[in-house]
């Protein structure tokens, strides 16, 4: 229990460091004012707006103001939306979670059977096909895959909606697009860790005791192969929550990824900061969750 509390408390300095880095990056990236005004705005208009938004103050003053408000839970107002940045970001979380979870579920559904199968049938034609498919799956850019899926399933066959969020049907194409690349990575990982475990003495012992092969594979070997798998699942889920930028844009999915990309384009500092903070907290919590799952999978692991 102490371990978990300690891990949660570690979030505070981590967030502080992240906020500083992001603040510097956005500050260096430049001035949002010119982007907010028309293309033919005068220098005088730009100066006036910069002054009214407090952007003429020196770096330390701006950062000081920022830290002072942030510790009180106020991430500031979005330049673009004119609203509290944190609430704009939190509004997006459900859509992002929905897509991330669906993608992970699809990835797991593909990766576990294929990974296990190619390991048990090493170097067979099935193994070669699964390995080849994994390479292709990983190499396909999401952008291209998403558009191809839309063309095939929506435009040609007309069985799935093109884009947007709403019904379950809307979720399928973006989730498959995101899930394919992850499935490829997971398949490779499960295959290699299963191969390692299948050659261990205790598996041979189990087999020689006459235990059915499916039971040996899934009960004895697979459970032990799960630890690296949990790590990659936790990492991938965190990445999906923060980084499904391209897939969200292709499928007009209103998640955090799209919000972040627009905030960066318009240099909407408050939104960028709030997004990064929320994503950081999720990544840290996901890693903590992975640690706890290790403990459940392998009681020998101690959480210290």
């Amino acid at each position: 229990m102490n371990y978990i509390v300690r891990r949660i408390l570690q979030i505070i300095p981590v967030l502080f460091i992240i906020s500083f880095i992001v603040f510097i990056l956005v500050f260096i990236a430049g001035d949002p004012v010119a982007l907010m005004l028309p293309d033919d705005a005068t220098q005088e208009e730009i100066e006036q707006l910069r002054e009214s938004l407090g952007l003429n103050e020196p770096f330390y003053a701006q950062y000081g103001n920022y830290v002072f408000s942030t510790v009180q839970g106020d991430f500031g107002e979005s330049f673009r939306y004119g609203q509290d940045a944190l609430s704009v970001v939190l509004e997006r979380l459900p859509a992002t979670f929905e897509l991330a979870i669906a993608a992970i579920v699809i990835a797991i559904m593909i990766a576990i059977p294929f990974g296990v199968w190619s390991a048990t049938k090493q170097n067979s034609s099935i193994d070669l096909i699964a390995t080849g498919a994994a390479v292709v799956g990983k190499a396909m850019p999401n952008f291209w895959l998403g558009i191809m899926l839309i063309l095939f399933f929506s435009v040609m066959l007309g069985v799935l909606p093109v884009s947007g969020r709403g019904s379950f049907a809307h979720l399928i194409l973006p989730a498959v697009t995101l899930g394919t690349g992850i499935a490829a990575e997971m398949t490779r990982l499960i295959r290699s860790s299963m191969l390692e475990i299948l050659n261990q003495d205790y598996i041979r012992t189990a087999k020689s005791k006459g235990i059915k092969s499916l039971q040996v594979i899934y009960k004895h070997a697979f459970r032990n192969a799960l630890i690296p798998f949990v790590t990659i699942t936790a990492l991938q889920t965190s990445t999906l929550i923060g980084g499904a930028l391209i897939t969200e844009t292709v499928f007009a999915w209103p998640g955090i990824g799209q919000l972040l990309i627009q905030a960066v384009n318009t240099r909407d500092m408050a939104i960028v900061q709030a997004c990064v903070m929320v994503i950081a907290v999720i990544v840290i919590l996901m890693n903590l969750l992975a640690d706890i799952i290790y403990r459940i999978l392998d009681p020998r692991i101690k959480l210290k």
Partner: protein
Amino acid sequence: MKRKRFWVINVLLIAIVLLGGCKDEESNGTNEVNEDNRTLTIALGTDMVSFDVHNHNNTSTEAIHINMFNYLVKRNNDTGEIEPDLAENYENVDDLTWEFKLKDGVTFHNGDALTSADVKYSLERVATDTTLLDHANYKTIKEVEVIDDTTFRIHTHEPDPALLNRISRIGSSILPATYIEENGFDHFLANPIGTGAFEFVEWARDDRIVLQAYADYFDGKNEEWDEIVFRIIPENSTRVSELLTGGVDMAVNIPPSDWVRVNENEGTYLAQGISNRTLMIFLRSTEGYPTRDKKVREALDLAIDNQAIVDNILGGAGTPTVTRVGPGDVGHAAHLYDTYNYNPERAKELLAEAGFKDGFEMTLHSPRGRYLQDAEIAEMVAGMFAEIGVTLNIEFMEWSNYLELRNAGENKDAYLLGLGNSMFDAANALDYYRADRFIGQLDYRNDEVEELLVAAEQNMDAEERNEQYIKIQELLAEDVAHLVLHQESINIGVVDRIDYTPTMDEMIYIDSITKK
């Protein structure tokens, strides 16, 4: 055997998920065209910025607002004339004063009647609050004096001949003063009400904005549509696919690569119109730059075959011009529009006269993807310059970096820029030629133009002002201050059951969208 069973279960699971989706889709019916459908779905490329009508400065946001809020007067897109909207009538009392009378029976979406106090609140807000993005266009307004509930006067600091154009555009919508005072501005932003034909239902950011017809709209409830859904679809190919599959009824900004596809697809067509955005190459007249010499500027202008650009890169959709003031704008010089100068032989002679017999090298900064085919156009211009011996090095830049470079005056010989004119007044378009605006950036100066700009800016004699602006454009064309390429087109994909013609102001007026 067991392995087989395991596989069967897995395949079945995936199939169930996919079929589940298909079934759901069928019940959704998004691909079916329903002739009685009273919902209009329009796909936009970017989300709305805010419901703060005075603080967004964004054409696609205003294209939505225009259906929820009203201006005092509106510009007729066919005739270019200013007509009453919320105002019943108006008169110019003296150089600094305009008197307006509001229409009777105008109500906000909560039922409150529109009064002069609402106008005072709205216009004085944008005229005095310097933090608002639309403030710069309204700072000529000094105050709004309420005479009675429906009569008021607008006083300006200086004579403002463009006032009517000013208050018929983005940033001049009338807000409900009492509603905002009672509930606060944040409440208004979350629950906006206006006087327009459609009222607010929902805004799910980066997903959709839903409006419904307002039953008590002063001009009568919209007869065609009960509900309007603006969907946000940033990716071009996705937006086009939605249109082709009937997922949306209209899709804006169809890229040229998809024009044929949209036109040839059964059930959709491409509605095209001319925008009032003009694509230009701005040249440096700074000491030490070859383009300081008028002969060089003229040679560069003569090297460009504007029509070839329009035909080859824009599929014929665009109009070559030598002035930025387009048709429909106050002060438009018709003889300088739909024309261009092209004579590469004469261009070579002029270069030789200017001392550049063997040509020279220059740099053009260009955004990529901001304007229709901007990068391709820049490359074609480089090819045309090469014909007369001028090497044009193009530096493509990300938009924000481009703006920063320009604002810091670090731009080199030239930059490519497309400028719109939501004011529909030459004053707005020609302000870009004022010498003191671009010291250290463009450094163009023409004293005669300066004098005329000052004289026209506050000239309340409409006819004389018009002539002054035409004269300015003639002087600029003769001097080849900058290179004017063409006016862009607006390209909207529409399903066959709907009749729609884009308007120059890039607004989407729902009342102009009808079923066939």
